């Protein structure tokens, strides 16, 4: 048996309180593109960070061409020939393309002086070699996201890497650009190199990969030959079968009354033609992969982002919502996914946080009435069963679940009828999750209506009466709870509308050059 380019086995990695990877394995052959897939939080990023030397594994072996290696730091990974292109770019916006690519390795004379001309020549040579169209002297901050992506790739290739890892490289690219990228990858792979390709776009995996490795919940599931498999099979492997995923909402019928109607909503560069209705007493789940545009829809509705098209009706009345404060005044509250940064004042106490959005209610002529704030806080601590020694406890000392309850309390004080929850149980342990679920159902019983954005499919299935699925800034479908399954949601979530609706234009690289 020939030696694999890269083989890892028995890899374990834990973070305080979380087992991120357990007994992970993976192998990459020469001249191979291996796709790595898994749901959000399956452990892909952790695995990539281990390979690029950002994290150190707790245990496990790494072999390159059959030789044991241990990766000490990012520089060592590069020396071993492993390059990674992160989902979030690591570029210096104020530097030029060439300066970015050769940072730390710039051609110099006299040990200290830069040779800009040699630098640009080197970059140009590299671009000709790998056949991409980039201007070495352009400032990176002035480039489109797609071009910045190309800079990242050129940078990785400039290291003479043998193992190239790409984390969702096409998330920001259009079809023609994806085609160029795939050409790049095919040019790159040869008898001494290989690519690990992480992507959520199933159609792409078919086009570019030789094999697909599936991981779930930090564990290795299976590796299949791309040619012998169908995408539904892969999705099945990704989702798995979980008992908790089979719970469904309590029999509670939402009314037919429409409280929120969104028509043709769009934003300048992302969301396109979003249409949906929210009924009174309903939980409308928003499912989709990371970056599908779910949070953006919420932000657009509450006026945090500017609309470029579309109308919003509240209880049958057309409204224009300028900012989140205006939304709150109209009874629409948005509970951010980023609780720690956007939802809470971590250094302030429970009472201040609960009263924050409604300070007008608790003040007379600008002077705050501490007693009223305290008693209101006490009411909600009781109602929502917030576990805190007192209303004077600093928010950061509470657990994630209780912090989330404080955010909810804040919006209840404000008396919002429509609540948009963005990842309501992120970072919350299982027990607290149950309480949050119970709470959401109580809110429904009180006549509130809820939009719930969640990346956890079992959660979406369990709570939502209807499920809206998004992909790449568009709604790809609605499922009623009865017809929904994890597999069906994933299918809609990985649908590439842009390329399936608009017939794929033959995208040769020559065409790109001339525009």
């Amino acid at each position: 048996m020939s030696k694999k380019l890269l083989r890892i086995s028995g890899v374990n990695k834990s973070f305080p309180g979380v087992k991120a990877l357990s007994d992970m394995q993976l192998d990459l052959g020469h001249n191979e593109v291996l796709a790595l897939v898994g749901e959000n939080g399956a452990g892909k990023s952790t695995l990539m960070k281990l390979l690029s030397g950002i994290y150190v594994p707790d245990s496990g072996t790494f072999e390159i061409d059959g030789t044991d290696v241990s990766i000490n730091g990012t520089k060592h990974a590069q020396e071993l020939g492993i390059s990674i292109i992160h989902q979030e770019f690591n570029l210096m916006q104020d530097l030029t393309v060439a300066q970015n690519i050769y940072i730390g390795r710039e051609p110099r004379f006299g040990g200290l002086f830069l040779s800009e001309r040699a630098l640009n020549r080197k970059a140009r040579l590299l671009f000709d070699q790998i056949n991409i169209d980039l201007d070495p002297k352009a400032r990176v901050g002035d480039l489109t996201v797609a071009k910045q992506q190309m800079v990242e790739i050129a940078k990785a290739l400039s290291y003479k890497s043998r193992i190239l890892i790409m984390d969702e490289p096409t998330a920001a690219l259009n079809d023609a650009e994806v085609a160029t990228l795939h050409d790049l990858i095919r040019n790159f792979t040869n008898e001494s190199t290989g690519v690990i390709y992480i992507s959520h776009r199933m159609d792409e995996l078919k086009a570019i990969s030789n094999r697909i490795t599936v991981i779930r919940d930090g564990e290795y599931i299976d590796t299949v030959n791309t040619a012998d498999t169908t995408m539904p099979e892969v999705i099945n492997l990704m989702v798995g079968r979980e008992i908790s995923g089979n719970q469904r909402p309590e029999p509670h019928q939402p009314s037919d009354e429409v409280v929120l109607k969104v028509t043709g909503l769009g934003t300048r560069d992302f969301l396109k033609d979003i249409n949906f209705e929210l009924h009174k007493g309903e939980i409308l789940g928003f499912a989709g992969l990371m970056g599908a545009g779910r949070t953006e829809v919420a932000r657009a509705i509450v006026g945090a982002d500017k609309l470029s098209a579309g109308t919003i009706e509240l209880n049958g009345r057309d409204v224009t919502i300028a900012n989140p404060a205006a939304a709150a005044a109209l009874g629409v509250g948005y509970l951010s996914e980023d609780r720690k940064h956007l939802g809470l004042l971590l250094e302030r106490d429970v009472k201040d946080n609960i009263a924050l959005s409604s300070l007008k209610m608790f003040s007379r002529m600008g002077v705050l009435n501490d007693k009223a704030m305290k008693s209101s806080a006490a009411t909600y601590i009781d109602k929502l069963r917030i576990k805190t020694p007192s209303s004077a406890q600093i928010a950061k000392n509470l657990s994630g679940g209780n912090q989330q309850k404080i955010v909810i309390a804040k919006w209840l004080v404000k008396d919002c009828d429509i609540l948009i929850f963005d990842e309501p149980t992120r970072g919350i342990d299982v027990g607290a999750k149950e309480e949050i679920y119970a709470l959401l159902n109580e809110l429904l019983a009180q006549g509130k209506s809820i939009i719930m954005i969640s990346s956890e499919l079992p959660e979406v299935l369990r709570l939502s009466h209807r499920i809206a699925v998004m992909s790449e800034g568009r709604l790809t479908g609605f499922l009623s709870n009865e017809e929904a399954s994890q597999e069906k949601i994933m299918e809609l979530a990985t649908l590439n509308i842009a390329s399936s609706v608009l017939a794929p234009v033959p995208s040769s690289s020559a065409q790109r050059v001339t525009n």
Partner: protein
Amino acid sequence: MTLTKEAAQAAKAASHKKSELNTRIRASFQQLLAFASLLALVLFFSVASSNFYQAANLSNILLSTVVTGLLALGTTFVIITGGIDLSIGTGMTLCSVMTAVFMTQMGMPMIVGVLCGVLFGALMGGINGFLVAVMKIPSFIATLAMMMVAAGLALVISGTKPVYTNEVAGFQKIFALGKSIPGLVIPNAVFILFAAAIIAGLLLSKTILGRYTYSIGSNMQATALSGVNVTKWTVMIYTVAGCFTGLAGVIATARLNSAQPAGGAGLELQAIAAVVIGGTSLAGGKGSIIGTVIGALIMSVLTNGLSIMSIPQEWQQVAVGVVILLAVYLDMMRRKKAVN
């Protein structure tokens, strides 16, 4: 086939050239704007008062630019990394005291004393850099503390009295009026400022130190992930900045023929203002030496011109404040436009 390929190549080259030109024009716009404002100010004051456009007065303006100008040069480096240095004002005073002490109480020859004065500045800068890069103290706090330490030390070392350098042979000549250009009496110190500016400009644009200065300010994490030793280079950058503080201290001593241990506070803000007027972003990643020089000149022309027009000093300060706001606002507007 080959024809189209060549055509494509040509089109590619042409579009690159065009975009490069655009970038360049945009990059230098703030400097052009600053330079135009400088010319406009000079023109305005020349018309407003016949005393302004006189050789003696112009020489005065240049002279008054020297110390803040040198401080601004050094702090440009720090600000481009995304940091700030509040210690340069009183740090300059401490360097001034040390230079005088080196040359008088310690009896060093003039040249050695001057060199040690500059190196003392480098040492202070290095300590700032260590606090920021190794101890991870935010630069605002670290240099605020250093500002106080330097102010105190200057008083302690000098015994709160001025240290006179009358007896040091040739020292005053550093500042004195030179005769390098016939007909124009330009003080040596002004030449030193311009020489320092040229060196700073070269350091920033032509050396790896300069490249990492921009890189760290633009995205420190990415720079580190690219294998650059960010800690080491940050210390180096602060050290280089400190050299300019040291040089400013030397010049200040030569100017007054003594080290005045109580001054210096407030100069750091003037220097930072000059840097900002010159288009350097406090967020890091952007800036230039030429911009800083123009910014420093705008500050002195403004103060000098307003004095000549007999505007009270209180109002001069108001005017300078307004100019800073205007400069920064215009810069922000321009950037916003560029993004859209």
